[in-house]
């Protein structure tokens, strides 16, 4: 699917001109006159990036970025501003802005920024997909297997797991084997890696151990 460039700017003429320029270079472009309009019309499954005006009446660029993180975290944001504003830039970067571009930058710089954003989107998409797959695998474990998995990734020995779950060491070994099979892994280290990716470790550390 062809990626879309979302141009969000309250200034109609700039918005239109930029859209024309990007279209002329063969990109798909959507324009929005405000952050609200953008968020309302956003379809999360399409690839692309956002050119977001930092200074707008109503919701400012930073506010929109925050909301966008919740809605479409994969969509890279390129901020556009009339003039470099250090405070705003830092905030934007902290919030995950990929790029920061002055409005009077050259077309080449703009195109580069967009390209970078697209590449990033793709990279993020791949990563995202991988995580989704791992999450699905973990989700496919039976309750007992999941319990065993959680204890395994915390480095517990089979004996300890058996004691903690009140089952025989033998049974633990069977479950452990099942987990390795289902997740397609061979070692406990790999299990820890998956758990870290999907964010299970912190979660578990916070929870009181069995």
């Amino acid at each position, binding site marked *: 699917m062809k990626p879309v460039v979302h141009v969000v700017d309250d*200034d109609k*003429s*700039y918005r*239109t*001109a*930029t859209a*024309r*320029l990007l*279209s*002329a*270079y063969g990109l798909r472009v959507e324009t929005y006159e405000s952050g609200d309009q953008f968020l309302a019309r956003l379809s999360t499954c399409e690839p692309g990036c956002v050119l977001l005006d930092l*200074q*707008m*009446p109503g919701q*400012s660029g930073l506010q929109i970025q925050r909301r966008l993180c919740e809605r479409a975290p994969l969509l890279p944001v390129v901020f556009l*501003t*009339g*003039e470099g*504003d250090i405070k705003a830039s830092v905030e934007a970067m902290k919030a995950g802005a990929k790029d920061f571009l*002055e*409005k*009077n930058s050259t*077309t080449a710089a703009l195109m580069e920024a967009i390209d970078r954003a697209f590449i990033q989107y793709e990279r993020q998409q791949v990563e995202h997909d991988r995580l989704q797959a791992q999450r699905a695998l973990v989700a496919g474990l039976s309750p007992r297997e999941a319990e065993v998995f959680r204890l395994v990734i915390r480095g517990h020995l089979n004996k300890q797991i058996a004691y903690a779950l009140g089952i025989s060491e033998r049974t633990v070994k069977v479950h452990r084997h099942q987990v390795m099979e289902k997740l397609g892994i061979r070692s406990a280290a790999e299990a820890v890696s998956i758990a870290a990716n999907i964010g299970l470790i912190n979660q578990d550390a916070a929870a009181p151990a069995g």
Partner: protein
Amino acid sequence: MGLSERSGRLCRTACFLAVAAASVSTLQAQTSDTSVAIIDRVPRVLVLYPYDERIAATTAAGEALRSRLLEATKGKIDLFSEFLDLSRFPEGEHVARMARYLGEKYAVRRPDVVVAVGRESASFIAANQGTIAPGAKIVAADFGTTTAEKIDLPDDVIAAFTTFDILKTAEMARSLQPHARHLYIVGGSSDFDRSWLTAARADLKQFSKSYATTTYLEDLTIDEFVERASRVPPDSIILALTVFKDRTGRNFIPRDAIGQIAATASAPVYGPYQTYIDHGVVGGNTVTFEALGRTVGNLVIDAIAGKPVSDLEAPQTYIADARQLQRWGLAEKDLPPGTIQMHKERSLWEEHWPILVAGSGLVLAQASIISVLLFERRRRRDAESRSRLHLLEAVHLNQSATAGALSSSIAHELNQPLSAIRNNAEAASVLLRSANPDHELIQQILLDIQEDDQRAGDIISRMRGMLKKRSEIDWQEFDLNDVTSSAIHIIHGEAERRGITLTSTQQPGELPVRADKVHVQQVILNLATNAMDAMLDAAPPGRALTFATGLANEYAELQVSDTGDGIPEERLIRIFEPFYTTKQAGTGLGLSIARAILETYGGSICAGNRPEGGAVFRVALPLAHREEQSR
């Protein structure tokens, strides 16, 4: 000539003689000695006038006599006047009746002194003294020594004489016309005229020797007199004696005859009578009526006081008619010393010098006060213009500061159209390179480029308007709504950057005011930037800056309100003072400059807090009155 008018025949001299004759009857004069016995009462003086009361000459003399007497006695004197009217009623019966009447009238108040004005009066009293004023002193005299001798008066009558000296008149003429070479003497054909001519011939014998020609114009008709006089050479002196009759026997009042001659004479005419003045005569040596009156007065006073009195000649004076001097171009300085100038238009100075001195003193004082005031005013003006210049400087600094503060938002605002133009241009050029260019789109792109260029231009011109430096106030009439809108344009970028909502409500129709547009805009910008600064700490959603224009009592008003913390009450009065600031980076000049600007244009500014929170500034400017523009 007042007297001779009616009595030319009787009184041959043209002048009259006041005779004060203390003519006590011979017997009584002897018994009562020379002094009048005046006991326990004021002295009584009876003045007899020969004619009626309307003869100007006798009236003038009588008036002089009267004031002399009143003055000398300090008013303690009884003055009686009688008009004998002898020329119109010369009949003996009338004279006898008059004598009898006066005798009875004055029986209870016998005069101590009788003053007889004119020869007729003198003769009358001499004949009737016993009836009218027994025991009184009488002075009688006549006109000119020549004629006085002919009047038969008692010896004890004392006389004040007047003599008319043609030689002195001639000398006056010579003094006025030192280069004259011809002498003419005019005289009539009556006996008196002839006797005058004879006397003159004798008097002028020596005098006439210094002239090339001396001509006596006599035995001529009036027309001949006039005609001859009009043909005399310009370097001539004409001396006029009297013309009671011309050769044909026609009677004249001399002054009228002389008047006719002088009117067309080709040289100045002189004459020895006061009455000739006003009839074209330059002047002469004479006895004035006033001088005569005073002389008589002195005699009477002496007589009352019992002093020995004797005949006295009234003093002669030179008189001249200023108008005639001017007519003939004669110099005033050539007049004999002491000459009385008649009809001289006394200069204002002579007439009113004390008033003039006081007046001009006042004017001077006033002028100096005025000049001091003018000077002060000028100094004030200078000071005002200096302070105005300082104000203009301060406003400019203020403008620059505002521009600096707004520069980033203005740059941002300017970047929008510029970036749009560039993107549009680039897009167009890409489109043109394509195989099948969309001409319609390119057309639209070009239109948009023009529009954005216009927008950028507007921003720059607003910026320039904001920075415009004034060396003097550029007065113009404009709509307060317009200026408010343009100020909002300037700050809207900054407001946006700070997350401040701008709202503006405007009075429908125009709010015409007269001032310098840039200055008023600066006031609004100051208030707006202050308001925006005041909202730094406020929560972004609640940041609102509101402009509202309105109309109140012939004033155009603008309210600028914010949703900041407001102004603490104790600071409200001080915020317009220069260098008063609560901001870390503030100069403290914004509000004081705003106030100075508004006061320059007759407006005002005040600050307050809104009940719902935040501060509000109210600006008022007087409405400019143009022709009713109710839209």
